[in-house]
């Protein structure tokens, strides 16, 4: 158990893994989510993702759909093995690809730039129910 800061509600903060190749977007999202009490681990790819998933309980993985060198389907695979929901973000993706990911089990697909309220609501819901509800 790591020593963690507590959120306003007094609960241990949830852990999110963020896979976002664009440094600026990654940094911005991280700061946003941390401000809302989440612990954010940035992962460059599949290997570090697997490690992160193995060593702690992760509430959700937020991943760009187009990660060079790592197919979205692979990310889904790793996460579903560990029963961790995945939320995809995308800036250069067709509706077909988004639909495909959802059908393969992704929790949601947010097109950039997206409403942060939507993301935060989704994450809060996950924290409360601990299940993959939409």
């Amino acid at each position, binding site marked *: 158990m790591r020593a963690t800061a507590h959120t306003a509600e007094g609960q241990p903060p949830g852990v999110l893994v963020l896979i976002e190749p664009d440094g600026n977007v990654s940094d911005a999202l991280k700061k946003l989510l941390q401000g809302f009490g989440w612990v954010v681990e940035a992962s460059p790819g599949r290997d570090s993702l697997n490690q992160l998933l193995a060593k702690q309980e992760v509430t959700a993985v937020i991943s760009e759909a187009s990660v060079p060198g790592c197919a979205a389907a692979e990310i889904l695979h790793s996460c579903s093995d560990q029963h961790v929901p995945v939320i995809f973000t*995308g800036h250069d*993706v*067709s*509706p*077909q690809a*988004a*639909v495909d990911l*959802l*059908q393969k089990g992704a929790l*949601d*697909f*947010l*097109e950039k730039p997206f409403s942060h309220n939507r993301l935060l609501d989704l994450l809060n819901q996950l924290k409360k129910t601990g299940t993959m509800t*939409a």
Partner: protein
Amino acid sequence: MRKENRVCIIDDDEAIREALNLLLYAAGISSRAFASADQFLGREEDEEFACMLLDIRMPGTDGFALFQKLIREKAPYPIIFITGHGDIPLAVGAIKQGAFDFLTKPFQHGELLAKVKAAVAHYLGERKTLLDAHELKHRAGTCTPRERDVMELLVEGLPNKKIAEALNISPRTVEIHRAHVMEKMAAESLPDLVRMAALLRLPK
């Protein structure tokens, strides 16, 4: 052409309706097309559909509104959206609300066919399961309460002697009940009966 494969097409563009009808016909799938959601809702013949191809933007009741209505009413067939207006939030929303698939025009015909076939297969699979459960429920209903008690314990793996003890009846009686159960449920073997029992317990 098997009627149980029938696909329902709803699109305001006549050319699209024609094209889809032909495409499906060539693939051995029967279909029926409607020019609007209202036309579909006002149809007289209430035939069974195995899949629906639905356009989103139509005059009158728009496709998405119809879709939501059908989902609310638990329409049994899978719904595939075919639309010229393909934006991601719309597609994602549709899938999350229960659409089976989402295609943007112009689509590859091969892709459309593949998705329709997948939808129909899904429908038939689901329906078969549903039918099975229905039928089994009916069969179980023809069993007496005592016979049902025996069945419960049978599928739990208890031997006749233990069942007799549990129910306070003779082993001979258990055997008679067991024979009746197998006959009424039309089970060919105990594993068969176990499978049936599992289906019976499906939440419906």
